[in-house]
């Protein structure tokens, strides 16, 4: 009864929804290559501006894209911090003396506790995280009294480090924004069909893209069913006293097995019946088939492809110059 959203697709109307999935895949690829070719930060910022403009043209809510960025945010932050700390080329632009005293440690623990508590009760987890990082910096920088646990050390930021970290982060941001646009506006089935058509030439080296796409689309179709079933199995075993929240490790292992074995066996029976149903409807792997869902390439796709080729060309020109 309940349905599960697969991928990030959100039904909508804007320009990108009407593009052929092949166009979108190719365009995202071309622009990604272009982004990797750019070498100056101004060019990258312009690229970021363009990506942002695309969002507005496609009438895609920026909030949804930011939500899509969330899982990758931690990675971005760590990349940023590591680049800043480890890269020691170019001019030194920041040189702060930092201390680690008994009081610093105390304050750090305090800051950590406050952060964890706040995270529990508020919804702005990322804001809280940023505040925590800033707090750690301020504590290390200014709490200089008390027993010294370590001799003072220097927090140094070099010009190249700052430039490189900004570079990497903007690059990642552009790429993630683009791929989010792709998954946000393309149904998973259309995405697989697009991939299928694009990979069709691989048939020469023995890769059957049609069978591959069928496998993907059947898996997508059965994800909600299997999810539902897992839930029922869990309830059935809970009815037999399997409490998945408590218990010793040994009991837990048994409980997990009591979940996995029925899931596998049912999936196995299901696949057998499904194979029978497909065979009885004359499905033969590798045979030629016609398709009900044809991809249609329209003038919009021509424009979009031309645009992405232009972006790539521009990037190449900038690189050569």
């Amino acid at each position, binding site marked *: 009864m309940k349905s599960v959203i697969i991928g990030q697709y959100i039904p909508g109307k804007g320009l990108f929804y009407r593009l052929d999935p092949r166009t979108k895949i190719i365009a995202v690829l071309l622009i990604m290559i272009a982004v990797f070719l750019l070498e100056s930060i101004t060019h990258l910022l312009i690229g970021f501006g363009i990506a942002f403009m695309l969002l507005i043209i496609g009438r895609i809510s920026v909030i949804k894209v930011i939500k899509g960025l969330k899982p990758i945010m931690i990675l971005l932050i760590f990349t940023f911090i590591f680049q800043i700390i480890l890269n020691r080329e170019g001019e030194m632009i920041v040189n702060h003396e930092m201390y680690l005293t008994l009081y610093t440690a105390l304050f750090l623990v305090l800051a950590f506790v406050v952060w964890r508590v706040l995270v529990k009760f508020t919804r702005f987890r990322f804001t809280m995280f940023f505040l925590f990082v800033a707090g750690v910096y301020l504590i290390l920088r200014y709490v200089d009294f008390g027993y010294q646990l370590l001799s003072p050390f220097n927090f140094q930021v070099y010009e190249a480090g700052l430039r490189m970290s900004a570079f990497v982060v903007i690059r990642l941001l552009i790429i993630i924004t683009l791929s989010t646009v792709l998954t946000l506006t393309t149904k998973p089935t259309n995405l697989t069909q697009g991939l299928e058509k694009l990979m069709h030439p691989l048939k020469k080296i023995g890769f059957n893209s049609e069978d591959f796409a069928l496998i993907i689309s059947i898996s997508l179709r059965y994800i909600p069913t299997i999810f539902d079933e897992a839930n029922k199995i869990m309830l059935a075993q809970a009815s037999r*006293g399997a409490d998945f929240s408590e218990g010793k490790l040994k009991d837990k292992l048994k409980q997990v097995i009591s979940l996995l074995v029925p899931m596998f066996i049912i999936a196995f029976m299901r696949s057998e019946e499904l194979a029978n149903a497909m065979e009885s409807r004359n499905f033969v792997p590798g045979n030629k088939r016609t398709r009900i869902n044809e991809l249609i390439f329209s003038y919009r796709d021509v424009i979009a492809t031309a645009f992405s080729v232009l972006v790539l060309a521009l990037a190449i020109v900038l690189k050569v110059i």
Partner: protein
Amino acid sequence: MGIRFNQVSYEYPSFAEGLYSAIRNINLEITEKNEFIALVGHTGSGKSTLAKHMNALIFPTSGSLEIYGNIITAKRNRKVKYNSIRKKVGLVFQFPEYQLFEETVEKDIMFGPMNFKITQEEAKKKAKEALNLVGLDDSYLSRNPYNLSGGEKKRVSIAGILAMDPDILILDEPTSGLDPAGRRVLMNLFQDINKKTGKTIVIITHDMDLVYQYFNRVLVLNDGNLIFDGEPEKLFRSEDLIKYHLDYPNTIKVLSHLNKELHLNLNIYQKTLEEALEEIKRGGLL
């Protein structure tokens, strides 16, 4: 004691219709001894949702229910031992495949009791007893549950719950997919367990013939509302079942057909074939 529903409603988010209400304002009491209750209603009427509340597998979104003195509300309460509720109220799911997982029948039946910290020997004893209670002999103990027939699997899955020795046993459509003979054997078995052990048994079913013949209390759900709670015969006399997508028992249908066609005056409320035959002989052959 037993189970008491107090204005219980359960809603869940559905992508199609926003909040979907599975059951609404249910008031209901099930005692712990000697009851034999049928739970009927068409697909989507909330039968399974209601059953899952009875052993605290899901919690009401509003209202409360009391299960053996434990108060269950929307919020999880740390003081309530949910697991111990499931020992008192056993729920058997429709498909045995959902729960069978061990390599032997014995081990599988032991899984339930073992979750309640008893010794291996005790669990073994309970497994054997439960298996005999569902009408299978000891030779099944060492068999692989996946090599059994559909009916046998069903019995083993029921034994798996019975081994925990619950006071109340709830079964979700235990007779579906069985042939008529298998269906009757299983129903007789439930009746037997009910009589022998005094356990209260609640059975979800679609089969009105069974409801009429076997049960003395029937609960009818329609679109999440409990619209009837009482004797089956009273239900067939008073309510328009067709309105709720439910059918009448065959004896009633056949006898009322005779009344209509031959202008007879038979008492149509006969539970069994024999009773119906007597009634025809009494009222039709004059």
